[in-house]
């Protein structure tokens, strides 16, 4: 029997062999589907091999659900093929946009959280779930720009989106920390407001001060170890809502597999303790 997934790691090509060989309890892997939208070849072969042994989560970055247009059908079809192929335990995307009039801006861009935006994004999430034939999780982005014109707070917006579409939430605790710092609100209050029953996954990652702006602007770099304030927020969150599959997310300045595994083990221990108390 496969043990219950606890804490997972971002799947990186330089770690394929170690990922396949690793026997850590509760370990799972998360991949960006955009990196596997190929017809064949060694990348897909590795993903297939790891998916045979371990739970996989597919975490999209390019579907642009918060665009003012429908998601790209070719992209959705490629995602569907990948979902059918690796049978992931979780599929997620972001509350952000990146596609506009046929041009892809590779970032997770913000928007005013209006009632009209909620309707459009709910339609897009409905379409995603209809094509994939399954529930997806939507992640809170890191924010760098204080916009006005919001009708909803972010948690309120995500909760309304989930109630409307049946999707769940992926809470990125580092993004909460970074956004709260940059835009000046309470990360604790944000996390305390997230409805426990909607949270299906948690992300932890590292951040860094902006190279030019300094500590006034934190950047969600995915290029460093998880910071202690983020671990504290994480402990607070799972203390309230209980254990959830948790990813140590790393996409830049990638250390040796053993280093990432040590961070993962810390999350695994916290989750296991949480389950014992539950």
């Amino acid at each position: 029997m496969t043990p219950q997934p606890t804490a997972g790691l971002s799947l990186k090509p330089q770690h394929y062999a170690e990922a396949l060989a690793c026997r850590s309890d509760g370990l799972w892997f998360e991949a960006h589907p955009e990196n596997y939208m190929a017809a064949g070849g060694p990348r897909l072969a590795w993903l297939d091999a790891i998916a045979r042994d371990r739970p996989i989560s597919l975490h999209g970055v390019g579907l642009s659900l918060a665009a003012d247009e429908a998601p790209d059908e070719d992209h959705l079809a490629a995602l569907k093929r990948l979902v059918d192929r690796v049978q992931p335990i979780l599929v997620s995307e972001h509350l952000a946009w990146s596609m506009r009039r046929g041009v892809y801006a590779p970032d997770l861009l913000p928007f005013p959280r209006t009632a009209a935006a909620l309707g459009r994004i709910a339609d897009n999430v409905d379409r995603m779930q209809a094509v994939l034939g399954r529930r997806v999780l939507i992640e809170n982005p890191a924010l760098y720009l204080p916009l006005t014109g919001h009708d909803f707070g972010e948690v309120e917006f995500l909760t309304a989106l989930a109630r409307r579409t049946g999707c769940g939430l992926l809470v990125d605790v580092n993004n909460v920390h970074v956004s709260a710092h940059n835009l000046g609100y309470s990360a604790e209050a944000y996390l305390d407001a997230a409805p426990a029953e909607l949270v299906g996954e948690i992300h932890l990652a590292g951040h860094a001060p902006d190279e030019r702006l300094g500590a006034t602007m934190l950047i969600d770099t995915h290029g460093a170890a998880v910071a202690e304030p983020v671990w504290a927020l994480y402990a607070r969150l799972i203390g309230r809502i209980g254990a959830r599959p948790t990813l140590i997310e790393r996409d830049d300045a990638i250390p040796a597999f053993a280093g990432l595994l040590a961070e993962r083990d810390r999350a695994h221990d916290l989750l296991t303790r949480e389950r014992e108390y539950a």
Partner: protein
Amino acid sequence: MREAFHDRFLAAVAGDDAALAPWCETPQAGLSVYRNTMAKACADALVAQFPTVERVVGPAWLAAAATAHAAVSPPRQGSLLTYGAAFPDWLRRFPPAANLAFLPGLAQLDLLWTEAHLAADAAPLDPEAVAGLPPDAFGTHALVLHSATRFAGFDDTTPRLWQALQPPGEPPDAFELEPEPQGLLFVRPGLDIAHQTIGPGALAFLAACRDGDSAAAAAAAGLAAEPCLDLSATFARLLAAGAFAALRTLP
């Protein structure tokens, strides 16, 4: 109002700081974060796509070229796996590359490598299946290229230079090209890509196969391009490399 927001956000990122005035006080430091992230993501994807070019010009030169290219040829798909198809031709018109005439060719070969890398898996044609064919069957059958087979021809020795630049070996001291027509063939019969230089005859043979011509017509095309081509040795070499997937009976 929302429709306007997305366009205005991109205008602001492109440099028109006032475009976002209805939604935030300007100028905003946060805009530069999005601007930098987008530019870096495009440049990183292009740098990863052209490792042989990087070996010649270094990472800083290529990143600067990639940033300039992304400004005029942004990605059009939510996956960046194949981003950069227009980069080799763009390099031909990029003034800093003017005295590096071999660079676009190297970039073109890097793209073909990626195409072979990402192509559908398929079993290569079993040489035994061909060995038993009677000679007249070559007029009624076409050789179907393997899904990962890619090739390109040059008027010079760009293919040999590309090969010399592949790790783990040290790059050559000088990047000299000889005026000798040469092609490069990529095959991936399993998961590993192999490459070999080929002459004009083999190139014409493969191109005719790609066009769906009969094996006999492909042979004629090969001989027309290279009159002293050793046809059976060339065919055996391509077959053994895994360049073909099947024999198709022509209607």
